[in-house]
């Protein structure tokens, strides 16, 4: 298994509070991604990073921000959590963009009450 960990694995928070999810990799891969998984939607890309301090938006980026200050860590922040952000969040990594598959972390289940 690719060396990807996510923390926390489970979190319950209240509407309006800030939340930060962490993805940590030990593979030294350049690309990192954040997805959310919701029933009937598969996985949808939130944000991705193509290097330290280099990030870009995915298809469902509203309400989320990311940061990457080190190769191994990619943080996803919900500035003010809403109930619509209740979901399972997956981090993924890939070595290169065009030719290599993405490997996924174990996921973080976030519930916003």
């Amino acid at each position, binding site marked *: 298994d690719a060396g990807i960990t996510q923390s926390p694995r489970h979190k319950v928070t209240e509407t309006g509070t800030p939340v930060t999810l962490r993805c940590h990799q030990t593979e030294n891969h350049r690309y990192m991604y954040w997805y959310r998984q919701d029933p009937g939607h598969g996985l949808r890309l939130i944000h991705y990073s193509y290097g330290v301090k280099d990030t870009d938006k995915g298809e469902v980026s509203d309400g989320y921000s990311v940061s990457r200050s080190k190769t191994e860590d990619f943080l996803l922040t919900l500035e003010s959590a809403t109930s619509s952000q209740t979901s399972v969040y997956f981090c993924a990594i890939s070595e290169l963009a*065009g030719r290599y598959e993405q490997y996924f972390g174990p996921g973080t289940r976030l519930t916003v009450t």
Partner: protein
Amino acid sequence: AQSVTQLDSHVSVSEGTPVLLRCNYSSSYSPSLFWYVQHPNKGLQLLLKYTSAATLVKGINGFEAEFKKSETSFHLTKPSAHMSDAAEYFCVVRSNTGTASKLTFGTGTRLQVTL
């Protein structure tokens, strides 16, 4: 824009019988296609990938998929289902943006295996 459609949200088979999970894709150029599997409360694991080499792709755990350009399909098959195959399966197409590759997921097919 590239997309995939998984034609069945739920498939039920008996143990020992063949598995067929259907996926159609839409792409303006030759796509890279994947199947991922997700067991309950687990992350996603890559089953197999097609990247314009052989059209019949073999993956892990006895699964294979055939890329058919004329039918725009990439169906996943296995000759004999095992109880441990019960999971959700995602068909995925990859597109390359200027800075990274983007995966577009189908909505998933839940495979149930019964005795």
